[in-house]
């Protein structure tokens, strides 16, 4: 698979305050977030962010509130302007765009889904879904048809002529997603899109997103503060803290090799069996396996399903296959070892409490 970089964020800084340029010098000289606020009265929003987002993948940016994740996503379509740095979309620097090119970018190339849905309350559901096309000035009738089509695709039939307030939160966010899809842009920005929904609906929506993604292959930038959600959706995971990237990479990789106490804290709480996948802990092996093999499992199965299949017998070996070909072997003992929880780091946030 060709790894075409769709969005590339390079050396992005954002400082809030009266004189960000001057404060930027301090930050580049190594002044930290708390010091900058105390001594110079400026808030450090983002600090030297470098992220490459691959076309057709879901990049999840995760962090706690105040880590700058919502600020970061707003730089991609320039709802916020950076203090310094570049955002390249298909190789073009978005930061240098004038008003017209920026509007074209927002209309054609990027769509956005919001935490609080942000639908137009005075328009019907279908008008909301068709909004991106209407904004572009396309024929209203075709726009409405397109909107209606995508509403159906996200599971909202027959609500076309209701108003947003008549729908539940989950349904409203489906309209939000339909609106983003109607715009037919390559890039979807999702700002805590599911955070305001209750857990069951949230799981539903995550499944919906993954299902749509299999079909549409958009470049999705997803913001969340929920690690389970991040691990479920991410092809590429970026963890932010206080405005800088703590670690980024493949989620399984981060889970198995956290490089910062902050991340160790984060992952100490999760259900590892549900999140870890067979391919991350198997031994790669393409030739014949010695000894008895209990069965075939898929590389993308999570460990929970393997445990269920083995009925708890730790002496078994499984053959790991992907697309019908053997890619490795999984010993149940390795599986148990991978499940040993990392305790909260002693020097981490929770260790101090």
């Amino acid at each position, binding site marked *: 698979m060709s790894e075409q970089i769709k969005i590339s964020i390079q050396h992005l800084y954002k400082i809030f305050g009266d004189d960000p340029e001057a404060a930027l010098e301090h930050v580049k000289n190594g002044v930290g977030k708390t010091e900058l606020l105390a001594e110079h009265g400026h808030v450090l929003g983002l600090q030297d962010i470098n992220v490459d987002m691959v076309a057709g993948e879901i990049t999840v940016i995760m962090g706690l509130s105040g880590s700058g994740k919502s600020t970061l996503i707003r730089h991609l*379509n320039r*709802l916020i302007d950076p203090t310094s740095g570049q955002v390249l979309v298909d190789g073009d620097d978005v930061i240098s765009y004038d008003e017209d090119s*920026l*509007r*074209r*970018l*927002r*209309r054609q190339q*990027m*769509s*956005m889904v*919001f935490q*609080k*849905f*942000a*639908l*137009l*309350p*005075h328009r019907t559901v279908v008008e909301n879904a068709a*909004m*991106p096309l209407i*904004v*572009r000035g396309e024929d209203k009738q075709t726009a409405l048809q397109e909107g209606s089509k995508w509403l159906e695709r996200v599971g909202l039939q027959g609500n076309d002529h209701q*108003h947003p*307030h008549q729908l539940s939160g989950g349904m409203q966010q489906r309209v939000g997603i339909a*609106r983003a899809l109607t*715009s037919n842009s390559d890039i979807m*920005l999702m700002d805590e899109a599911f955070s305001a929904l209750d857990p069951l609906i949230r799981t539903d929506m995550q499944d919906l997103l993954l299902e749509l993604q299999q079909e549409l292959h958009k470049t999705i930038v997803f913001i969340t503060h929920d690690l389970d959600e991040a691990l479920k959706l991410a092809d590429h995971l970026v963890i932010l803290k206080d405005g800088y990237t703590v670690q980024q990479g493949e989620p399984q990789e981060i889970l198995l090799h956290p490089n910062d106490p902050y991340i160790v804290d984060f992952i100490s709480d999760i259900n590892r069996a549900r999140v870890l996948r067979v391919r991350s802990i198997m031994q790669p092996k393409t030739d014949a396996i010695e000894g008895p093999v209990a069965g075939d499992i898929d590389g993308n199965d999570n460990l929970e399903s393997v445990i269920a299949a083995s009925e708890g017998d730790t002496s078994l070996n499984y053959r790991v296959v992907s697309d019908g070909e053997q890619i490795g072997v999984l010993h149940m003992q390795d599986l148990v070892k991978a499940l040993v929880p990392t305790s909260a780091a002693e020097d981490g946030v929770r260790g101090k409490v």
Partner: protein
Amino acid sequence: MATYDFIFDGLGLRGWCGEKTGGTMSMEELLARNSGETKSLWELPFPSLDNLHDACPAIAQTRGLTSGLESGFLGIKDALKVVIDPITQPLSWFLSGALSIFQTVPWFVMIPILLGIVYLASKSTRLVGMVASFILFLAFIDHYDYAMQTLAIIFVCSMICVLLGVPIGIAMSRSDGLQRGVIPVLDMLQTLPPFVYLIPLIFLFSVTEPKLYGIAIILYAIVPVIRLTDLGIRLVDKDVIEAADAYGMTDRQKLYGVQIPLALPNIMAGVNQTIMMSLAMVVIASLVSAPGLGVLVLRGIRNLELGVGLISGLGIVLLAIILDRVTKAALARVNTAQQ
């Protein structure tokens, strides 16, 4: 001798002040001289312009301030008139036009038209019934013509208030600087007693011109629609505005597609207030020849005709109820369409 002589003597300014011209003596001075008493410290007057003038004639009296203001205004009056007269002339046309239309259309055509408008605005037959009974009652006691004159004036003035006020409110909502500048003016217009700005208007225009009271009413009634338009647009959900930006709406699309529709309940509340305030002012404006029920109120006061004053007052109350209920019903319809 005046109390503050010592200051000018002490500073050696006596020469600059010049000698007292003598002139006419005030009653106060005469009394003081005759009683021959020296004033105690308790009676020390505030060093105001008048008291300083007593000590030093070169200092102007307070009377000079008011007369100076007056002569200043009279001085620029003609120049001001050259600018303001043509600008405001259409107001006179609108007012006389509306007055003649409301009065020449016969009652059996006018009343159904008004009721039709009420129904379109409120979609409520109960309200139409109420309005019908009020108007028929006013017509029955021979106040129909006066009520129509008042309605015509309110109609024109409120319309102009909305046409001017909404754009001003929108401009204010977009610029903090403009908002900071306009709000003190609005505060002043709202607190200044309406009689006060009638005075310069009388100097500027002839009392027979309809625009004289038109301007007075508009100045008084335009405030709420400006304030509430500004407020309404500023209160539009930031998330929705962000979504509009994220999908690349132009400022114009955002204004007409998002901000004004979402601010409409507030704007309508402002229109309601504006109409009520123009009704209040149209009564006062009868002092400067505005026709309508206010004339009867004024007659009641001038001639102490108790009955005339009370009945016309009741007529104004009925008109107020009609205008308030109809605009509120329209507002409620806007609200339910959005919620």
